[in-house]
């Protein structure tokens, strides 16, 4: 058996070879640059990687999908203003307002988007296009609990005791549910004291509070919880994994939030970022993303709704959804987060 010997020269050549081989496919694949796009983890990340990467590659661009929750995206961009880690962000109006306030995103040039006119004016934001509308409601496991009518049911029907999970106010899905509950149990959407009192009066509900919707989906799969506040996308994902999960629109109405793509200030790959935005609102991409497991509501007018999406919401019903006042939420959010966290920790 020969002894293994590696000289400095061989080591140097090996290192150079590895560096060259790593760089080669990158340069071939992304001749026009690579967009670093932040998306929500899970369904969004998988869906966007599968649907958008081929479209961008066909146009000579690369795409790196970086999963991060909207608040995390904001935190990371705030940490390096002028040198953002992402070229584009994906967020709802609440985070968008914070991003504008902190000068983190820029207005877009719609003439660079071929599919811009395929969007309704309501989806043509000056800071970026709306790629879908997230419709929120209640997810439940029919094997474990009866179909809930709405939020009140979860507190008053003993069938749900110990089986409902909630998250803190950092989650948009949770905030939208809590503002609805504030209307039901209090004097209006910002009367959060009524919601805190409700939890104090039902301490069993505090036992299932976790940190994120993704975590709730894991617990739902394990049968640890049977009900959580969700978007239609969360339920579509669970169904695609073979779970018995159903979506309920609360009797008081479904909160909804547009999801937009924004261009960061100081984005390094503008051409690739615009190509990515354009791909996200294209018929080709939205025809894929409207199908399970993503089932995203298409904002491109040419894309027909699937029966699965129409079961949740039709284009006509969009105007009847409940759209929270994000300015009021942003004003109170920090205080609500601290109060709720202290309440949960006892």
């Amino acid at each position: 058996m020969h002894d293994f010997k590696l000289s400095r020269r061989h080591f140097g050549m090996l290192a150079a070879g590895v560096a060259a081989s790593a760089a080669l496919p990158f340069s071939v694949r992304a001749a026009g640059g690579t967009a670093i796009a932040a998306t929500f983890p899970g369904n969004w990340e998988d869906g966007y990687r599968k649907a958008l990467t081929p479209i961008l590659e066909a146009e000579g661009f690369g795409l790196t999908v970086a999963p991060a929750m909207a608040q995390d995206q904001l935190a990371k961009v705030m940490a390096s203003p002028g040198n953002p880690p992402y070229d584009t962000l994906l967020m709802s109006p609440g985070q968008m307002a914070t991003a504008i306030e902190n000068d983190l995103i820029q207005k877009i040039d719609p003439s660079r988007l071929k599919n811009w006119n395929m969007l309704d004016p309501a989806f043509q934001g000056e800071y970026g296009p709306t790629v879908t509308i997230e419709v929120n409601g209640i997810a439940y496991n029919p094997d474990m609990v009866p179909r809930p009518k709405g939020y009140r049911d979860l507190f008053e029907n003993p069938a749900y005791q110990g089986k409902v999970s909630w998250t803190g106010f950092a989650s948009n899905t949770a905030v939208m549910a809590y503002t609805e509950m504030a209307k039901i149990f209090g004097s209006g959407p910002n009367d959060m004291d009524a919601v805190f009192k409700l939890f104090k009066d039902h301490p069993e509900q505090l036992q299932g509070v976790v940190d994120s919707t993704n975590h709730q989906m894991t617990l739902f799969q394990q049968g640890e919880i049977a009900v959580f506040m969700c978007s239609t996308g969360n339920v579509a994902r669970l169904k695609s994994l073979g779970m018995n999960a159903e979506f309920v629109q609360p009797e008081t109405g479904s909160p909804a939030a547009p999801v937009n793509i924004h261009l960061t200030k100081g984005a390094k790959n503008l051409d690739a970022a615009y190509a990515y935005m354009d791909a996200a609102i294209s018929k080709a991409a939205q025809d894929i993303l409207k199908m399970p497991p993503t089932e995203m509501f298409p904002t491109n007018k040419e894309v027909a709704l699937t029966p699965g999406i129409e079961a949740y919401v039709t284009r006509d019903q969009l105007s009847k959804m409940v759209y929270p006042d994000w300015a009021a939420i942003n004003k109170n959010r920090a205080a609500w987060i601290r109060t709720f966290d202290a309440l949960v920790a006892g």
Partner: protein
Amino acid sequence: MKASGFPYVVPMLLLSVAFFATPLAVLVGFSFSGPGGATVEHYGRFFGDAFNFRVLVSTARLGLETVVGTTLLGVPIALLYWHSGRTARQVIIFLTLIPMLTSNVVRTFAWIVILGRQGPISETLMALGLTGSPISLMFTEFGLLMAMCQIDLPLIILPLIAILSRTPVQFTEAAQVSGAGPWRILVTVLLPLMLPGLLAGWILVFASTSSSFVTQAVIGGARNVYVPQLIYREVGTLFDWPLASAIAVVLLISTGCLLVAMTMISRHRRLVGHA
């Protein structure tokens, strides 16, 4: 020549200054920053809220409980290794190292299954008739402690094994011949021998537990809040970085004090004995 080794230390020194001391200095500086100049306001805000103080105490308590748990589990395993033959030793090393080769996230999610309503703990308790209905240890401090002990166990076993593998087994035989009973051997021979390894293990386990984020967040849920989650909330959700820096400095100082205390106790003459 005493100074001859210094050049070899320079790269490590430079790395430590660039990637540890400098960021730490920035962190400390940030914790005193305010719109009108230097301020201690953020520390006042932290200690002014009883909730924060409770979280700090819970974090230290979880770290100490994990140290106790891993010590109780780790010492017998290390002693078993010491008295085993070559093959058994390889098996013990393999079983100790294999969890470390798995991501902490994966190990944490495995604990969701173990601690859940349909997990082996619940099933066993039901089979033994100790409980009539499935129980879940998720979101409980005890469940979190079990997970932390398993995850951090290698951190105490490996230093112990390193110490014991250099120590002849005949030490215990000599003590037996001299008439010492099992407990006396443990207290006067084995523990003093293992103390350097135990100390290293305690520091590693305590530091790992008190700074862990994923396991605490996933297994502990939102009811069991610890300092890393508090820091994450201030940075990632509330964007209050000066307060987050102040909390991080408080965590650093408080865990540092506890580690110094542990070191002092373990070096106490009566504990070390004649070893």
